[in-house]
């Protein structure tokens, strides 16, 4: 498991998935959680007669932003500055971490509160803070579970989705030193509450992410379910928000669409329990210093790719993760990235070197369930194929790649399929070549090399004695038939 800022290599998707598929408890947890959220999502989107129009509007708002990102980012900076906040620009993860550390150190703080933020996971913020002796406290319940359990998120919205209640209790009991902690959900939330409350009152600096940055007003919008986020936004003296540059939206009014589609897609709720918009600094009320770090970290490179640009429309609802039949089997850790599931499979290989993440665009059966649920209509299968094309072109640029079994097989297949006569010859050859592999059952039960993956769990019927084209050629020409 590595975050996006590190260059640590991790196992490719099939290898990581193979290990996770053996964890039956994890699979049960993931399946249960994604079933529950998907079911809730289906009912609250199904009740809206204009759901498809909302998706279309959300898509257009986000598309428009990406086409005019330079304009809206500058507008956001101007508006936030007028409101008493300060914008910092970070080209990459290191720069974002340096800015954040500088701001914390300027207040001589050695502790910070954290609001759930995937962007801070992306840049490895907690580790960078720890390296300079600053302790970060995750305040989102799920993030707290993961921090105490020393784990990484496996889901964008529900980061500890792979854990069940008993596993959470065990982590709390061990890490909080609560020997007689109860088993009920109320016992666990009470334990988290008393652990966190004390820190809310003590720690002077909070770091958040952002769901939306409003260019028109300079506002930062955060939606959440627990209220701990709002606690972090109101109690500390200093607030630092770290957000990807693509998070900006033009107008306050655009929230009308996005705050309908985001909660319905993310948690299956009509509205989030807590919707907060922070706009600058207000004397005597809330944080007296407000910083926004705008992070590029590879995003501007994606803007140049006409096919893949739509990746940045994402509003991080994770509906694609819940709907994805691949994610539902493996959970998020198989992707080796903070962004898992279908969106991770297209986003991560674009934020990081493609050759190190080459297995991710292939971690999909292209079933299209992700596109169907996406509230901003990102055609994820289309982008996956586009990225597969890039992977293949990169592979073909080296001699080893050219001589690789996949490339050779595909070139051979392409040559055969260019001509009906060659396909016919291949069919005849195949019938001979398969003979040693046909088992007593009359089926192929074991194949060598690449194809062994198929026969590990699946039999294969042998090629029939006569292909369709052979049958057709022997067919007498009919009066009403169109024999050739």
């Amino acid at each position, binding site marked *: 498991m590595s975050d996006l800022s590190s260059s640590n290599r991790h196992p490719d*998707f*099939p290898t990581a998935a*193979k290990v996770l*598929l053996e964890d039956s408890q994890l699979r049960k947890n993931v399946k249960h959680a994604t079933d529950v959220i998907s079911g809730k999502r289906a009912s609250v989107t199904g009740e809206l007669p204009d759901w498809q129009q909302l998706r279309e509007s959300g898509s257009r708002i986000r598309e428009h932003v990406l086409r005019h990102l330079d304009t809206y980012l500058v507008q956001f900076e101007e508006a936030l500055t007028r409101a008493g906040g300060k914008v910092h620009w970070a080209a990459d993860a290191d720069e974002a971490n340096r800015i954040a550390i500088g701001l914390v150190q300027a207040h001589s703080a050695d502790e910070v509160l954290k609001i759930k933020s995937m962007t801070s996971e992306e840049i490895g913020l907690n580790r960078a803070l720890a390296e300079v002796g600053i302790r970060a406290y995750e305040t989102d319940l799920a993030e707290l579970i993961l921090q105490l359990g020393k784990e990484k998120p496996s889901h964008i919205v529900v980061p500890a989705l792979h854990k069940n209640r008993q596993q959470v209790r065990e982590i709390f009991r061990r890490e909080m030193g609560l020997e007689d902690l109860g088993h009920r959900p109320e016992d666990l939330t009470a334990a988290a509450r008393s652990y966190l409350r004390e820190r809310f009152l003590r720690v002077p600096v909070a770091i958040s992410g952002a769901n939306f940055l409003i260019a028109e007003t300079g506002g930062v919008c955060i939606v959440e379910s627990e209220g701990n986020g709002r606690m972090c936004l109101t109690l500390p003296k200093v607030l630092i928000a770290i957000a990807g540059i693509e998070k900006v939206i033009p107008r306050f009014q655009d929230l009308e669409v996005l705050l309908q589609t985001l909660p319905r897609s993310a948690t299956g709720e009509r509205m989030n329990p807590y919707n907060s918009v922070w706009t600058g600094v207000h004397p005597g009320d809330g944080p007296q210093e407000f910083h926004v770090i705008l992070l590029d970290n590879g995003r501007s490179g994606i803007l140049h790719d006409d096919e893949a640009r739509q990746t940045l429309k994402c509003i991080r609802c994770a509906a694609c993760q819940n709907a994805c*039949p*691949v994610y539902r*089997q493996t959970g998020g850790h198989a992707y080796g990235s903070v962004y898992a599931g279908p969106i991770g499979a297209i986003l991560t290989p674009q934020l990081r070197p493609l050759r190190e993440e080459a297995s991710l*665009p*292939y*971690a*999909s*059966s*292209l*079933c*299209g*369930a992700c*596109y*169907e649920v996406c509230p901003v209509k990102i055609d994820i299968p289309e982008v996956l*194929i586009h990225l*597969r*094309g890039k992977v*293949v*072109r990169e592979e073909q640029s080296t001699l080893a790649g050219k001589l690789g079994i*996949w490339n050779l097989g*595909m*070139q051979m*297949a*392409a040559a055969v*399929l*260019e*001509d*009906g006569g060659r*396909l*016919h010859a291949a*069919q005849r050859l195949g019938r001979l070549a398969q003979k040693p592999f046909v088992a007593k059952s009359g*089926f192929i*039960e074991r194949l060598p090399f*690449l194809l062994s*993956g*198929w026969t*590990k*769990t*699946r*039999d*294969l*019927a042998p090629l*029939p004695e*006569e*292909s*369709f*084209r*052979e*049958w*057709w*050629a022997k067919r007498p020409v009919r009066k*009403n*038939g*169109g*024999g*050739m």
Partner: protein
Amino acid sequence: MRVSLFITCYNDTLFPQTGKAVVRVLEKLGHQVEFLPAQTCCGQMHWNTGYLREAVPLIRHFVDLFRDVEAVCVPSSSCVAMIRDHYVKAARETGDQGFLAEVEALTPRVFEFSEFLVKKLGVEDVGATYPHRVTYHASCHSLRSLQLGDIPFRLLRQVRGIELVDLQGLDQCCGFGGTFAIKNADVSSAMLAEKAVSVLNTGAEVCTAVDNSCLMHLYGSLHRQRTFTRTAHLAEILASEAS
């Protein structure tokens, strides 16, 4: 109507009985079926695996061959999805305006078998008899790309003697996904295991679909488990008559 059959490379090679069934149904309805033996493959495997450049000659071959036909009927929704969803883009990327125009003119005349019957020919009852307990698996492309909706069910409901049973988790992928089944064999197998349980839970004798690719995948597991549940393409059911 003169109908040109695009059998698809894998049906041609592995499932000739499906092609024969399509011919039988269409001729029974009084249509003239032609088969152009120069045909090969729509290019889907190469395209979806990222061999985009290699798919283009296959696409050109398809377009050259079927350019002048009245209608192309294809017993595979995923091949039709390839043609409808990706041909225009592939042609556009070649920069060849003539090719693009040909693709745009041809694709509206390409139909998946069940939609050809119901939408183009306006037929739901093809006079079939099939006295078996059957469940229908909706392939992802038929569901989400072609959006066939209830079209296959409208055809199946007219079949004499058939007992249709609903498949739980109809919108869940069987895990085939072309080269995905090999590149991610373990995840694919895990998805398949769930689908096989759903199919067995129906107690159906036969699982049908409009794609033999899913059925080949599913039967791979059903046969490995030595169950008695079979698979059959929708065309084979519609071609069955009382014996």
